């Protein structure tokens, strides 16, 4: 088992003829993901690595029965692309694009509210279910099928954690990058119940960072509903207030959203909080009694 995506997931890539889109569509396909369609307006009839290109997501859905969209569309047009995927009836939208204006995302989030579609991201590495489907930009080879679910606001820091899990022989089930923007589609509290329910996942690694209160909300949820061990690292204990640390969402404002506060909330909820990012793997190993 796994969560969100598996070997049956059928993917359409929006922005497939762009540099990023074509490169990553090829990589995902090479991993074994069912990449069934691409969309670039005006380029229907072309192919990218054998993946047929359509003018609209609606056409792609009609012709290929794709159920998941992977988006590489540039920021100015990305809100439109997400809404197009939702209107076309795709169930899962994974948006990699970094730099979408927050107020655009405000409107997108509102428009998706109450609809049977899940948005992951934007500004995220995507989702991978190990050995089944890689839908994103993460390097596939660092993953190893195993027992740990990973959910994270970060990209390369997630790879770091995954690398440790794989090296220690623990391995992963599914890794979900929820993205570094202040307004995103899916939060920790949406992913945690999926891991809790997944029989193959034995422990969860949650990687947070400064800014917002997603980690505090997660702590509240974990305390009430999660029985599996959760191991967490929060990046940015040395970050100064008021400065945006790369991610639009990673900013301590008005004294809120500090790493220390988040760690405290998680520890109080029974989460094993790791202070040293090099120790994530070992902490999971210990939690699983291995």
């Amino acid at each position, binding site marked *: 088992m796994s969560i969100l995506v598996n070997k049956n997931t059928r993917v359409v890539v929006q922005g497939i003829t762009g540099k990023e889109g074509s490169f*990553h569509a090829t990589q995902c396909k090479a991993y074994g993901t069912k990449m069934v369609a691409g969309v670039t307006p005006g380029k229907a009839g072309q192919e990218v690595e054998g993946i047929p290109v359509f003018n609209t997501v609606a056409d792609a859905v009609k012709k290929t029965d794709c159920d998941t969209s992977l988006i590489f569309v540039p920021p100015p047009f990305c809100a439109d692309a997400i809404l197009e995927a939702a209107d076309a009836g795709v169930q899962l939208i994974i948006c990699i694009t970094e*730099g*979408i204006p927050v107020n655009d995302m*405000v409107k997108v989030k509102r428009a998706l509210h109450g609809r049977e579609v899940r948005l992951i991201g934007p500004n995220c590495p995507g989702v991978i279910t190990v050995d089944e489907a890689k839908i994103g930009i993460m390097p596939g080879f660092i993953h190893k099928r195993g027992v740990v679910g990973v959910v994270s606001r970060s990209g390369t*820091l997630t790879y770091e954690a995954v*690398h440790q899990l794989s090296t220690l022989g623990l391995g992963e089930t599914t890794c979900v990058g929820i993205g570094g923007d202040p*307004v995103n589609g899916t939060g920790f509290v949406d992913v945690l119940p999926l891991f809790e329910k997944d029989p193959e996942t034995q422990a969860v690694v949650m990687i947070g960072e400064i800014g917002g209160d997603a980690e505090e909300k997660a702590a509240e949820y974990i305390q009430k509903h999660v029985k599996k061990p959760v191991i967490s690292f929060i990046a940015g204990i040395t970050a100064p207030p008021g400065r945006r640390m790369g*991610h*639009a969402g990673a900013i301590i404002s008005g004294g809120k959203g500090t790493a220390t506060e988040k760690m405290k909330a998680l520890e109080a909820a029974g989460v094993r909080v790791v202070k040293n990012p090099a120790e994530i793997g070992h902490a999971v190993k210990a939690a699983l009694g291995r």
Partner: protein
Amino acid sequence: MNVHEFQAKQLFAKFGVPVPRGKEITSPEEATAWANELNTPVFVVKAQIHAGGRGKAGGVKITKDKGAVAGLAKELIGKTLITHQTGPKGRKVHRLLLEEGANIAKELYLSILVDRDTGWPTFIASTEGGMEIEEVAEKTPEKIIKEAIDPAVGFQGHNGRNVAFALGLQAMEPAVINPFVQMLGNLYRLFMEKHAALVEINPLIITKEKTLVALDGKVSFDDNGIFKHEDVQKMRDLNEEDPLEIEATANNLNYVKLDGNIGCMVNGAGLAMATMDVIKLAGSEPANFLDVGGGATKETVAAGFRILLKDPNVKGIFINIFGGIVRCERIAHGVIEAAKEVKITVPLVVRLQGTNADEGRKLLAASGLALEVADDLWEAAQKIVRLTGKAA
């Protein structure tokens, strides 16, 4: 991106939010000319820097004497203000806002930002105007009024009335209720149309003449939305930014200067923060946050080196790259090439992990460069801290 108070007020005026008559001033001569034109009983001269707490630091002067305005302007221009937001070095004043004074009957607080929890634009209002809103929220949370605006339909009259009546405007001054509701609608338009991240008026005053005036104004913009607005781009004041940060932006690097002495260069924001944290755990302090992005190349690495080495505090450099799509042997080539171009005068530790990491490490080891190679994050952090000595 932050802008000055006078720029925020220009935007307010454009969107129908009442502000005092005022103008940006950069010399005593300009001050005299505008003071003559203003012709008001009270003149207010305000230093324009991107930091709060200007009043307490002596950056705001009030006079009834038109003839004294030029002297006050002279005193403030070129002065360095130190407030709780500027850091110990303070910020030099290059421009002033000279405006008319107001007869304050009551001070309120008003702002709008996106509530990250709901993803809805939300007004925050309080009767405790002129205070630090964080302090009000901490000590008297019952005095904070929140009103979320449904982005599907935008601002509605009832949103404004909810805030107006919750603030007690009816008891305070019923004449301002309708203008207040209208003002909130205008602020919402400004916030959404200009891709603002925060619009704050503190204080918003009710005057003795029963009008509303934005006596102070702060607007910051979403960096991701600025490309849509040429007028906003023009408001950028490079005097208010760190020169190294300006250079980094020009090279598409994400750099934030900090106070420690270990420079770090990392790919990815989360890993960059984690790298700073691990430096601290190892007993030192990071000199900066530097994210060279997912597609680090020879050029970005070289630009990163140049920026790090311009910071006199940097006593050692720690490069931490997790090769995903970027292959480590390419990064290694980049480091070697860049190190030849840019003279590296401090200890250097390079940690490569991920795609083709072994190959990359071998290349570095064989390069003859004075650097240490590591494969584990903790080992690398301890190495660089040892090489630079613990934080002073």
